[in-house]
Every structure is written in C-alpha cells, then in structure tokens.
C-alpha cells in the first residue's frame, strides 16, 4: 500500500483553495478487506485524502519548507458509501492560517453526490519540536517528488492568477535524488 490518497490536483490557488481527485479501484488491496464481499472506500482514508489535499495547500503558505501534520480532526461526517469505479473529488479551503497552525474545511463528492464534510486542524511542528526528537520530518526532495506526482505546478496559481513555479520554492538539496 502506498500512502498517496489523492491522485492529482485539478485546481490549486495559493492561500485559498484546491480541488483534487482520487479514483477508487479494485486494484487497491484494502478494498478486498473493507469490506470483504462488498468493497467500500474506508472513510478514514477519505479523511486522509482531504488531509493531503489540504495539508499541501497549507504547506505552500510556508513555502513548502515544512510539512504540516494533522493535529486534530475536529469533525467529519459521511453520507454514503464510496465504491470501486467511483471517483472522489476533494474540495479544500483554508479557513485560517497562523504561525502555529491552520484550519482547513473540506468536502468530498462523487459527481454531484456529497459524500463527506470535514474540518481539520494542522499543526506546524517546527525544527525544535520535541516530538521530532531532533530528526527532520521529511527531506525537500521527497516533498518535491510528491508535489510533482500530484501536478501542483501544472495547475497551481497564486491569488493574482500567475502560475506557481517550482523554482520559486526552496525544494532542492545537494544530495542526489533517491532511486
């Protein structure tokens, strides 16, 4: 199982909102256990989709220099079952960004059908955070790889409409890229 719960952004406006999609497919192992006999996209992974879509939106405000972690799922409500062959569309919006964290609201739709709504709080850890035990949460090259996979720089724009460019963010390192 890979930990990518959005497939691609279709819209990304810095500091404002984003739209991302995720296809649900029988090729995913977990559907064969959840539930065995009647595949249903687990709602915890729908939350993760919104968290990833929203987390990168928040992280961009810190220049992609930090990853934020989901500190609290304030609320999430689910209205249906999402099945294999359906595509989830996540719409996330920044409600508040402060120096210590951010609030993001999100919805998940399958076509016109509202499947879920959620309010998430992200915590910004910072280098000195005790929980990190002196380690880095991630290397910039891994984040750059992820951003590239989900097409952030293909659709991303600043609020004035100008395209977001990868070179404007400190995403490079001296070390060679991983295999």
């Amino acid at each position, binding site marked *: 199982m890979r930990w990518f719960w959005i497939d691609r952004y279709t819209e990304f406006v810095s500091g404002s909102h984003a739209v991302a999609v995720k296809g649900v497919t029988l090729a995913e192992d977990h559907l064969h256990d959840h539930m065995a006999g009647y595949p249903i996209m687990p709602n915890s992974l729908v939350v993760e989709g919104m968290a990833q879509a929203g987390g990168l939106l928040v992280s961009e405000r810190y220049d992609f220099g930090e990853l934020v972690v989901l500190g*609290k799922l304030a609320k999430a409500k689910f209205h249906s079952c999402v099945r294999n062959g359906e595509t989830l569309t996540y719409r996330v919006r920044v*409600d*508040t960004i402060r*120096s*210590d964290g951010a609030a993001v609201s999100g919805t998940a739709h399958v076509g016109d059908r509202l499947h879920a709504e959620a309010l998430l*709080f992200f915590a910004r850890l910072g280098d000195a955070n005790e929980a990190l035990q002196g380690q880095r949460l991630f290397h910039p090259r891994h984040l750059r790889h992820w951003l590239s996979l989900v097409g952030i720089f293909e659709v991303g724009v600043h609020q004035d409409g100008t395209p977001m460019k990868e070179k404007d963010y400190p995403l490079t390192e001296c070390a060679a890229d991983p295999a």
Partner: protein
Amino acid sequence: MASEDEIFEKVRDALVEALGVDDDEVTPEATLQGDLDAESIDFLDIVFRLEKSFDIKIERGELFPEDILTNVEYVEDGKVNDTGIAKLRERMPFADLSKFEAEPVVQNLGQQLTVKDMCNFVAYKLAA
C-alpha cells in the same frame, strides 16, 4: 453587546464541540487543561470557533501568552519573575491571576485557566 449568559452559552458550545465533552462538564470554574483535557491543538480549534461565534479576531498569544512563558527575560528556574508577572497582568486583564501569582510555576498558568477566564476574555474583546 452580548450578555454574560449569552457569552457563557456560546463559549460552552464552542468547548463542547471542540473538546468532545458534555454540556454539564463545562462549568465556569472548570479548568480548560485540567478538567476539560484541552491541549495546544485544541486551543487552535477553540480560538477558531470563538472567532466565528463572536466575530472577533484573536491573535496568537492573546488568550494564552506562551511567548511570555517561554521568554528567558521573564522566567527563572521554571517560575515567572516579577517583570514577567507584570507582563502577564498587562496581557491578560481578563484573567484572575491571583492563584498563579502565589506560585508562578510556568506550567501552572495553563492548568489554572478556567472557562470563566475565557468568558471574561471574550467580553474584553467584544468591549474593545
């Protein structure tokens, strides 16, 4: 201008939603960290709800002055010194700091903040 009761009700609703506690657990004397188990990530949530509920803006450190509590100028040996206490009084005119001042151990401030202190904070912001 909202009445004391109206403020308390809205603050209580915000705390019930944010902390997942029951209505009757939120009494004016209940301490946010001690009785209601609020942690720093919860404060982000609570502030967000209060801002929406009362249409006010709450800056970082306004409700809970972590910058004063972590400043070496104001803290010695885990206790807030007199300059620090003066700063706290200035920053938190809405709070009853008498208990804290008797034994100003840094961790105690968070532990002692009550629902009533939060209501007073909202009233103070609304009046400003």
